[in-house]
């Protein structure tokens, strides 16, 4: 009997221990929903560093010269480059390229700088990286550059409502975007103050004077782009930009000096790291350089033998088999990793000024501007002054009243190499009803049965994720019953 009672007591003891544990867990209910810092991410920061956002943009901006798909395709359209193997893009199949990597990449990094320096809660925190005004102004100018590249490629695009974390927004008309970009550049240039310079700027090391020149140069290029459609506005803005001060010497160039290693020149990266050889220098440009005895030919490709443009695949293979020494871009595999790219350079700006002067838009001396522009470009490519002098003395080159506008246009086309965004836009602008092949005269890929595209069709994502607004814009680019046609022209590209 006693044993039984003890057993019972033991049983109850264990029962109460078990219950106790359960009740303890329940009684700590107030803590059951507390996890301290378990969900604090140890891997990444939640606060941006504006200078690092700027550095990030500057590290990729050179891909717009040559490196990203839009730039590479544009370089095919303006025949800086030829495809050597699979020639579909140079025979004008739809490249199907979107802009998400731009808006969602560097463009929003720039917007992030603006937001962080504008938000009353964070703008003071941003001051250690430079004055709010200098940071914002720098970011705005770069944003305007990106918008320029995209609108010249596609036409209408989200602008006024863009980068505000709203994915379904209307596309702005290019005729509205252009003046808005010019105005934004004006006010951004004016915004720089005497406060601390923006850190993270390895292009101009925070020199507000140089940023202003860059901003004004962009404004001049935008203004000249309107020569066919709105010369009145173009003239006013171009002249004003020059007065405000543009890039005049190579020391002011917007230059991306690649450090090498994991940040290589994109051409070097393409041939050496990616190990593809799909692109070569086009025979169109080597022919032109040869005809002009242009010494830059030795810099544009590793040989002077251009690859015929736009051949069919088997023709391209057959040709390359007996012409193995055709020119790959720049110095090909021995292009230094550190070879710099120039987003905007003095030569390009001077040549734009030469054209504007010739159009009567400014009081510049066209010949002086032209010769200065070519000289600056030669210098940029490492050509000696003596060789430049010889070059300029040729009647095929010098401005002598014969085909001067054509000569300027061709020099501009040469000066932008290998930047297809600019080269293609310039070529389109010089092509008119009277001169459909433009300057230089480009012929479409042989046998492709298609014309050189006048724009790129919108990318694949907008019809899916922003269908209504995409449709409204795409319908505006209908040619021959095909919506969103690459044969449609952007606003400034008047036939």
């Amino acid at each position, binding site marked *: 009997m006693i044993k039984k009672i003890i057993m019972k007591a033991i049983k109850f003891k264990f029962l109460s221990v078990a219950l106790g544990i359960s009740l303890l867990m329940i009684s700590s209910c107030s803590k059951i929903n507390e996890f301290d810092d378990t969900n604090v991410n140890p*891997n*990444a920061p939640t606060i941006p560093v504006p200078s690092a956002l700027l*550095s990030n943009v500057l590290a990729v901006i050179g891909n717009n010269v040559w490196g990203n798909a839009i730039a590479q395709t544009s370089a095919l359209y303006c025949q800086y480059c030829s495809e050597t193997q699979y020639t579909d893009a140079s025979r004008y199949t739809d490249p199907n390229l979107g802009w998400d990597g731009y808006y969602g990449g560097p463009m929003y990094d720039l917007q992030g700088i603006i937001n962080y320096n504008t938000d009353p809660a964070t703008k003071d925190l941003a001051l250690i990286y430079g004055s709010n005004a200098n940071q914002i102004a720098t970011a705005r100018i770069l944003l305007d550059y990106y918008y320029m590249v995209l609108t010249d490629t596609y036409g209408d695009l989200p602008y006024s409502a863009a980068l505000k974390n709203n994915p379904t927004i209307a596309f702005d008309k290019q005729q509205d975007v252009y003046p808005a970009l010019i105005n934004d550049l004006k006010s951004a240039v004016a915004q720089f103050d005497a406060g601390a310079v923006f850190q993270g700027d390895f292009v101009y090391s925070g020199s507000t004077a140089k940023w202003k020149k860059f901003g004004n140069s962009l404004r001049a290029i935008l203004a000249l782009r309107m020569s066919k459609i709105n010369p009145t506005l173009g003239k006013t803005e171009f002249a004003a930009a020059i007065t405000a001060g543009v890039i005049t010497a190579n020391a002011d160039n917007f230059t991306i000096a690649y450090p090498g290693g994991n940040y290589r020149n994109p051409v070097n990266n393409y041939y050496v790291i990616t190990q593809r050889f799909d692109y070569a220098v086009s025979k169109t440009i080597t022919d032109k350089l040869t005809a002009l005895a242009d010494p830059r030919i030795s810099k544009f490709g590793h040989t002077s033998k251009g690859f015929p443009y736009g051949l069919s695949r088997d023709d391209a293979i057959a040709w390359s088999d007996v012409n193995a020494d055709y020119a790959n871009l720049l110095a090909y595999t021995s292009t230094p990793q550190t070879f710099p790219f120039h987003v905007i350079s003095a030569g390009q700006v001077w040549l734009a000024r030469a054209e504007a002067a010739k159009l009567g838009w400014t009081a510049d001396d066209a010949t002086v501007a032209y010769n200065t522009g070519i000289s600056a470009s030669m210098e940029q490519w490492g050509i000696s002054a003596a060789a430049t002098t010889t070059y300029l003395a040729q009647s095929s080159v010098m401005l002598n009243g014969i085909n001067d506008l054509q000569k300027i246009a061709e020099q501009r086309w040469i000066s932008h190499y290998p930047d297809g965004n600019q080269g293609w836009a310039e070529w389109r602008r010089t092509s008119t009803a009277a001169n459909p092949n433009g300057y230089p005269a480009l012929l479409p890929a042989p046998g492709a049965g298609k014309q050189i595209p006048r724009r790129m069709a919108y990318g694949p994502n907008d019809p899916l994720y922003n269908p209504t607004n995409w449709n409204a814009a795409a319908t505006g680019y209908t040619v021959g019953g095909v919506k969103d046609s690459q044969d449609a022209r952007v606003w400034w590209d008047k036939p």
Partner: protein
Amino acid sequence: MRKFASLFVTAILCSMLVFAQSRSVSGTVTDANGKAIPFASITVKGTKNGVTADADGKFTIKGVASGTVLVITSVGFDDREISIGTSENVSINLTPTAGNNLTEVVVTSAFGVKKSARVTPYSSQVIKSEQLNVIPQTNVNSALAGKVAGVQYRGQSPIKLNSQGFLRIRGGGSLTDVDPLYVVDGTVVNSFDINPDDIDELNVLKGANATAQFGSRAANGAIVITTKKRMGKTGLGIEINQGVIFDKVYILPKYQNLYAGGDGDFITFNYNSTMPAEWQALNGKQHHDYTDDASWGPRISGQEYIPWYAWYPGTQYSFKTASLNPQPDNARDFWETGVTNNTNISLGQSGNGYVFRVSYTNQYIKGMLPNTSSNRNTVFATVSADLGQHFTVGLNGTYTSQKIRGEFDDAYGNQSSGSFTSWFHRDLDMGIMRELKDLRTPLGGIGSYASWNLRRNPNSWSASNPAASVYAGNYWYNFFTYFDQINNVQNRNRLFGDISFTYKLNNNFRVKGTVRKNELTTNFENINPSILQNSGGQTGLLASYATGQTSYQEYNYELLASFNKTVMDGKLAINANGGANRLTTQYKDVNSATNGGLNIPNLYTIANSKTPPTNGNYRENLKSNSLFAFGDFEYRKFISLSWAIRNDWYSTLPTKDNSLASPSIGAAFIFSEFTKGKLEWLTYGKLFGSWGKKPKTLNPYSLQLYYGVNQFTWASGGSSYFLMNVPDNFPDPNLTGSLVNTWEGGIDLRFLKNRLGVNITYYSEKNIKEPLTINQSAVGGFPNRTINAAEIERQGIEVELNAKPVAGKNFEWSLTSTFAYITDNTVVKLAEGVPSYTLSGGAFGTNFARVFHFEGKDWGILKGGGILRNEDGLPMITENGFSGGLGWFAQDPEKEYGSIVPKITGGLQNFLNYKNFTLGMTLDYQFGGKFFSLSEQWGTFSGLLEGTAAINDKGKNVRDDVADGGGVHVVGVDAADGKTPVDVYISGYDYYHQFYYQQIAEPFVHDLTFVKLREISLGYKIPVNKLGNIGKAFQGANISIIARNPWLIYRESDNFDPSEISFNHGEDGQMPGTRSIGFNLKLNF
């Protein structure tokens, strides 16, 4: 919350009602072989005092006086009465009722609580080891194909030793496909670490019943596995299982064998004096284009030509021409015979109050890709021991160590199937390719290997740079060289298991505490040798070394109190459980990889990186706390009510609102209790239904915007600048967890003394406001956004049929058939302003097929460029982009092909026994669902596939000149007006290239439909008792001949096995299907 807590307390306090009565008797109910009979009823004769035995057949009954007679009843067994003497322990054997095959089915429900299937209010198909392991299985996923209703097995080619396929339960429930949870003895693991040999039974939980135990991790279903705990009988048992399987390639694309490689006609070689002198022998001879990796070359007719290997010195073939002959089997000849060796030894013993089992399994697979293998060792141990009358301690542990060697890429451009199906020369002799795998080019330095795909044709020889001018492989290596050289090794070591401690007060009340641990460490080393970099022209391969380690630890602390009691004179059985769980997981990894090549060739260290190496590490922590209570009431064994409530608190949810409560309730009604004696043919009939909510939580660190920091700084002017970017994904500031509403109902019928059974279940589920990351237009700055979005519905019917058509003395035939039909799987809504969601696809142009969810349409719509048609359905014909004139199809960019989910899935399993022979067969099928084949597109573009050299309606080859009656007949209407008829012949080359250039996916979109005989096993039970002295050593011996994937009976696509499609959208460069044959020997001692 307070309500919930009080409910929990009530459940536990119920146990306080238990008072020990006078004398009690404990015992075990078993069959003649000593195997436990679960849930038998034990009553004291002439009284209403009764108890139910537990799942292990154990019981304790009180109020027993000496001389009392106990009546023991159990379904499928004859009733038995025994008289109790003074003993406090009894062992009771029951005899099966003659001709009755109905036995109590035990279902393992949440927290390992075993229940009679009688009370489960949901469909719960239990797969026994014999059904699962018809043949020796390499992984648990493939073992399940066709065996569980409503589970679609999306296999992968067995060539990929690092892949296990995927199980999709009841169609698409979330916006993305999420793996179900794998649980072994209550511990969450990965499908990789489950050893099929140790599985006793497997239960697939599909609805709220899965989350009742495992919380939100099981919201996509759970594969619940119970391991083998004991050997067949009491005492010591040893079992040896030895299987060997040989694998051969089975399903390959249909190739053309009429035209050789290249993209154009023969090239005549012109020797010049700068070239290697030996080449002079080949002067004036012709060869196809080596550089282009298509097969639009010259017609094969036995003519003299220069094969690729003739240009390299040092072989019997050097500088000699050969005859150009068809090689119809070259793509097949590449693949080696795979060998799977599976050895399992297990031993165990059970006795009074203890049971243990130890098992060791080695599975070695020599892969079908050269130089690939997998070696897996698994040690499993389980112990359970009673410490006195009230305590039981249990231990389960599994240690798995696996080493996988090789590269198994099967995406576009991979160096095996990526060539054979997409870019290849049909004339290549694979035997010579294998023979010449060590052939070097005559170059200095560390040299390079020869390739069939020369960088340039020899006419462009340049003495100054022979590697760039001819020798290096243009896009491809010699396939055998590549796989010989590439050196990837991954190791995984997993240790998981639990220790539990049970205090059993009496038969009514017990408390169990369990600690579970699951630890996975992996490491890998990938080497791309320097010589491969040297040997490639445009192969994109740099010499590299990469290595990394991961470590994952998971702990679960579980406390469970269970109460069972029969009240109201045995009429009402009460089962109530309450408990708590705490889960913590911790993940860490470190990895490094070289960049830009290696400074010193052949030195594979991170420090040898040409440019700064990539170094990364990541850490992730998660915790969740849970309280739960569940149980059931069963009245007179014919009607039962089950209930569960669970509340989870997740560290990953916003602190202010991190709790999710998920209730469920269900009922079962055994109506056959009322038809007893009236409907003789109806053995058993049950109606069941249940409703519940399933919680869905967030991934760790989803609540904030985290900026990306680039590890590489940019050096400029003596300073280094660090880079940071705004991430692509924007998390909605109001993110919360969500609950999925689910219910199911059905009927379970068994007829003719259980000779025939059918279970029909209807389910319906609605997933609302799940936290998901969606794609969006990036124009707002963010390409992705995480929001509570979407409303997805799924409904369907599942049928399981069991039959035993023949049950003779010598011959027995039993079968199980499963069938599932998804009646509705609609994405009702995405999110405000989000019209579509991209699920998969996009290689090579986004107008090729991709998979989307569109609002109001079926889950997972395959969409891609189609052929534009007019109102009459005639194709619109536009300009031939190659040679002008009408001839190409106009593209319809809006073409939708339908859902990627097969509406119908199912299987059939047959077992036939004749004397000592057993034949097992598993067949499975699916109907509907779409996939896109990128390989077919490129195989067409490249002139590899049969159709590109077909005979047209004029009897000429489509590659013959149109002027000579060749070409492809194109009929349609002019796209310009949509009505002018077009009837032309265009060259095969132009025709078959259009699909890429026009981005038309349509010809390469197919149905996933198939019927497949997946497993056959013919076994012979060796009559050991007739073997004399040798036989005495054995208790049993079984030998079987087995086959895996022996016959793909039916499919609606030509070139790939539709049961093994690698991606959601289809395949991009897939490995071929395989067929295997082997044997298995099983010995019991």
